[in-house]
């Protein structure tokens, strides 16, 4: 199985096959994130096209020294999906998105293992914390909006979101 970096290098040379292989590897991740955020298969499919065409046009947008391709695609797909959901122009230049994680998600087995573990962790979180985290992540709601929706103090919401993310990190550090 060729490494992500080799496929990105292939795309730089104009290899459609490299693009196809990267699509096969990461399209389920990009699509499922988009679908979860947008709740619409057509919109999720459009976003999938947009993300991969962006990478095809300019492979240098992804800098392999700045993290793994799978993690980077997950983050920029989620961010773009939130932009679409909130009907706003992209807020961040994707080339500025640095994802400090070396986790290799190239293999399907790796991705499935991570998925199971994250789902397990989310399932074990207090429901209020999980709700705050998911509202911020999948709905793009600000802490003020979540606070207004749940009636809980702003500071509490902020802390729940941060500690939720930290709990995920900690689980994968051990």
């Amino acid at each position: 199985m060729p490494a992500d970096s080799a496929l990105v290098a292939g795309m730089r040379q104009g290899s459609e096959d490299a693009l196809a292989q990267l699509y096969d590897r990461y399209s389920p991740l990009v699509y499922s994130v988009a679908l979860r955020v947008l709740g619409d298969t057509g919109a999720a499919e459009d976003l999938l096209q947009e993300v991969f065409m962006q990478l095809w046009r300019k492979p240098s947008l992804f800098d392999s020294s700045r993290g793994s391709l799978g993690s980077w695609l997950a983050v920029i797909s989620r961010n773009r999906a939130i932009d679409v959901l909130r009907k706003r122009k992209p807020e961040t230049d994707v080339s500025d998105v640095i994802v400090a994680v070396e986790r290799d998600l190239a293999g399907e087995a790796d991705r499935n293992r991570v998925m199971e573990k994250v789902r397990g962790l989310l399932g074990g979180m207090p429901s209020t914390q999980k709700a705050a985290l998911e509202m911020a992540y999948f709905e793009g709601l600000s802490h003020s909006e979540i606070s207004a929706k749940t009636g809980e103090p702003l500071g509490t919401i902020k802390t729940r979101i941060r500690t939720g993310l930290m709990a995920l990190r900690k689980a994968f550090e051990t």
Partner: protein
Amino acid sequence: MSGHEQFADDLALHALGVLSGDERVALEKHLEECASCRRELESLRGDMALLAMSTAGPRPPARSRQRLLDAAKREPRRVEEKTAHPWWLPLPWIATGVLALILIFMSLQNAGLRRQVASMQRDVAGQQVELQKAREVVATLTASDAMRVTLVAAKAPPQPQGKAIYVRDRSSLIFLASNMPPVPSDKMYELWLIPTTGAPIPAGLFKPDAHGSATVINPPLPANVEAKAFAITVEPEAGSTTPTMPIVMVGAGE
């Protein structure tokens, strides 16, 4: 953790793209200066990627793959344009160049300063030699145990003599006297500078030693006074502002 607890919660919100208003402005300002918080932001994005993994499951429709490849065919890859580098990318090179220029400038200046110091050291050495000679002359002239001999015409008794050496531009005066008769204990000899115009100017008090010798070295004098003559009178110990007659010795410039 960054250690900057006040920004910890806001960093998580910023990673999620949901921080706005003043809080966002304040955090972005802080991020410009804080590498530790920038790293934490990147780590939080890594955490976000994990959260995305929880959604894995649904696969895109099969047609999506062909749609993408068709689109890619319509936009064949060109040799990728050079990445637009951020404006600040050349700054380290510019800074290096500026530093190199500063270094060269400082080296040249340093060499110049070294030459200047060497020249000053040579001047100081020369001045020390001159000073030593001057000291020896003054020491000889003013030594209490110096043998002072005034040569006069044979068979003539020794006469009181005074020698004034005056440099107007420096207001410098050296006066040497020999064979001076003693003065009463409450009296002093007073040397006068007689200018070409105006009243005589006091130029120092002296009392001869047992051998009749005396010196006056650089008494306080007004600047740049042209002297017509020098004269000596006998005055009270405290000195006078105008000469008391008679003049006991006088000499005009040669």
